[in-house]
């Protein structure tokens, strides 16, 4: 058999790579798990492609070809809650959702607050359908009391630190964490919700919480937490990343901090820009229970504005699997969080692109170039010789979110039954097709 010059070609798609500033129809070539080249549609290339065996050609005509997407905020639950998700199952969900890279949060059991657990997660991820980067803990056992051995965590591979799930309530500890992490040039990812203001709250504090008689988590709880962290970051330096921004006030605080040159970045989640708190009444769907909570229409508008003007750098899912029996309970007894890896692309397309807020290039930048830059990841672009992590999106394909299609071990999504536009058709990890939705 004749040796092929390439292992795989993705033919005729609209290639969008914000990192390369690339955006036109072309052919993408892969060899040895790496990007081998992007070529215009000339007669010579067309002839070469036509001579390649069918199983080495993916026809992406009419589709969008982008760098494998990065979800910088997921919970993979392993170790500890393998009934809810494993690194393998979470990465299968990632692949089906178009993500070739996920960054997992450290609130596992045991927590990822030590070198051994980082190594455990990375070794489990070796055979997974996505690359896994680890976010280590800020504090030992995420207790918010003493710093974790951050140097050790970084040495083992951690790309950031976070006590996600909880705010680092003690300002002195947060100050030290920012200063300490500076040595390793990694960001601290803050779950910015003041624990006193939000104590026992299970939904946004608004007329909706008033109407339903449910304890609220006020927007000001997020705004204050964000402002404090920004001020600490301004004072001691370091890099601050605000996870899952939800409020108009926090968007404004981050916008202003950026204008002042403070080293802060931020992410938003699809559920926070697609859902509002008035959806809780009536059915009390525990899949709508999430921290920080889904907010008001005005907050959604501010969030979209922040995404449009670049205040919000990234889109992340905060994929949070929970066992069915834990969600099938009283509203205020359910654990917070929802899965999101397989609905993100559809929600971004339907909620942001179709409404004219973002272009595909803007949206892709927030799921490739920006998270890669913030976390210093060697992925998120189609540059030649880089890993062949590629996502192909059928941008106008209409589909319905179905529980049975979730590859995650947990099915806790409030989007089941939603009709979305934009679906991942193939996901390629290091040249290997890890998802083929045809």
């Amino acid at each position, binding site marked *: 058999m004749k040796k092929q010059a390439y292992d795989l070609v993705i033919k005729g798609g609209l290639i969008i790579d914000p990192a390369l500033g690339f955006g036109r129809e072309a052919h993408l070539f892969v060899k040895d798990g790496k990007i081998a080249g992007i070529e215009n549609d000339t007669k010579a290339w067309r002839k070469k492609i036509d001579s390649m065996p069918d199983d080495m050609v993916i026809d992406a005509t009419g589709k969008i070809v982008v760098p494998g997407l990065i979800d910088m905020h997921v919970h993979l639950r392993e170790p500890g809650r393998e009934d809810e998700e494993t690194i393998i199952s979470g990465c299968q969900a990632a692949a089906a959702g178009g993500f070739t890279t996920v960054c997992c949060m450290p609130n596992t059991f045991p927590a990822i607050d030590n070198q051994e657990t980082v190594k455990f997660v990375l070794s489990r991820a070796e055979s997974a359908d996505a690359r896994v980067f680890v976010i280590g803990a800020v504090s030992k056992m995420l207790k918010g009391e003493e710093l974790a051995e951050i140097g050790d965590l970084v040495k083992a591979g951690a790309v950031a630190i976070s006590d996600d799930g909880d705010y680092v309530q003690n300002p002195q500890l947060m100050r030290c964490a920012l200063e300490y992490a500076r040595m390793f040039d990694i960001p601290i990812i803050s779950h910015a919700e003041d624990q006193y203001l939000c104590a026992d709250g299970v939904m946004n*504090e*608004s*007329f909706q*919480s*008033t*109407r*339903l*008689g*449910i304890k*609220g988590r*006020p927007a000001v709880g997020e705004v204050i937490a964000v402002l404090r962290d920004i001020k600490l970051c301004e004072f001691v330096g370091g890099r601050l990343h605000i996870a899952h921004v939800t409020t108009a006030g926090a968007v404004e605080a981050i916008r202003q901090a950026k204008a002042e040159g403070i080293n802060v970045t931020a992410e938003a989640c699809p559920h926070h820009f697609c859902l509002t708190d008035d959806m809780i009444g*009536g*059915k*009390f769907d525990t899949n709508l229970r999430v921290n920080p909570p889904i907010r008001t229409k005005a907050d959604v508008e501010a969030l979209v504005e922040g995404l449009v003007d670049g205040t919000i750098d990234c889109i992340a899912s905060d994929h949070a699997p929970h066992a069915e*029996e834990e969600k*099938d*309970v*009283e*509203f*205020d*007894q359910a654990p917070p969080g929802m899965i999101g890896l397989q609905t993100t692309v559809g929600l971004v397309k339907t909620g942001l692109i179709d409404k004219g807020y973002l272009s595909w290039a803007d949206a892709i930048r927030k799921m490739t170039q920006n998270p890669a830059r913030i976390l210093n990841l060697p992925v998120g672009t189609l540059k030649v010789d880089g890993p062949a992590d590629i996502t192909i999106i059928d941008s106008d394909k209409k589909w319905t979110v179905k529980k049975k299609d979730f590859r995650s071990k947990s099915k806790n999504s409030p989007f089941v039954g939603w009709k979305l536009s934009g679906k991942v058709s193939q996901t390629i990890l290091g040249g290997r097709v890890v998802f083929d939705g045809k």
Partner: protein
Amino acid sequence: MKLQSRHLLGLEGVTADEISLILDTAESFREIIERPIKKVPTLRGITVLNLFYEPSTRTKISFELAEKRLSADTITFTTSTSSVKKGETLKDTVRNIEAMKINMVVVRHSSSGVPYFLTQCLDSNIINAGDGSHEHPTQALLDLFTIRQKYGKLEGLRVVLIGDVKHSRVVRSNIWGLKTMGVSVAVCGPSTLLPYEVEKFGVDVYTDLDKAIDGADVVNIMRIQLERQQSGLLASQREYTNLFGMTAERLKLLNKNYTVMHPGPMNRGVEITPEVADGKASVVLEQVTNGQAVRMAVLYLLSGKWEEEE
């Protein structure tokens, strides 16, 4: 005329016609309670489960008596520990009980939304006897009944709901019911106990009790839970009583022929002086008696029994 839903989860969304139907039906049951033999065969063969996940005296007894007077078979399950702590989920508990073939469930629970949750896992009719700080529809219905009984109407009256508005399901159900029936509603309490954007209910909001009750017909005084002090919502019981305690002196601000209501249990000397609680304008015991009639009406209308009779 019948109720739209086969459950009574709250008064939000219940129409004026439906409320009138319940109150009118309650009138006829109210008469039965005064008879020497206070029993009718209306719900014979129907089994009602009273599921109380929160302590309750009067609501529980009231429902039990209402059921017994309608000849229903009743069983009452009371627990102070949440099902989660016991290791069995609420869903499993109720499905197990329903497997013993019951028809209706009266539920009280500390979590808002539990009555709706039960409609999703059971076939029984569900009656909300208080869920979290959300709704307590039968309490509001008995309040409406009591007001209507005294004035012969509801529309055009002015009712002030006083106290811990934030945590009160009685207040919420009263607001929905009263507004639907054309009553002008005000709420009054310390600002820390007025929930966010409470004015969006379409009520007048006061923190000055004298201003709130000026020219009103009815004051409905809520129990103040003394634990609120620990969470910083109140300074002290003494200060609460000074600012919001209902006294005979204050009652002079109300319209002639005013009414004093309280859903109980009362903290005498805190939110209400004994003089007011026992005064001739007080209908607190009438409320309790009427509660039975209203609950009989709700049980009857939801049971579907009346359909067989027609």
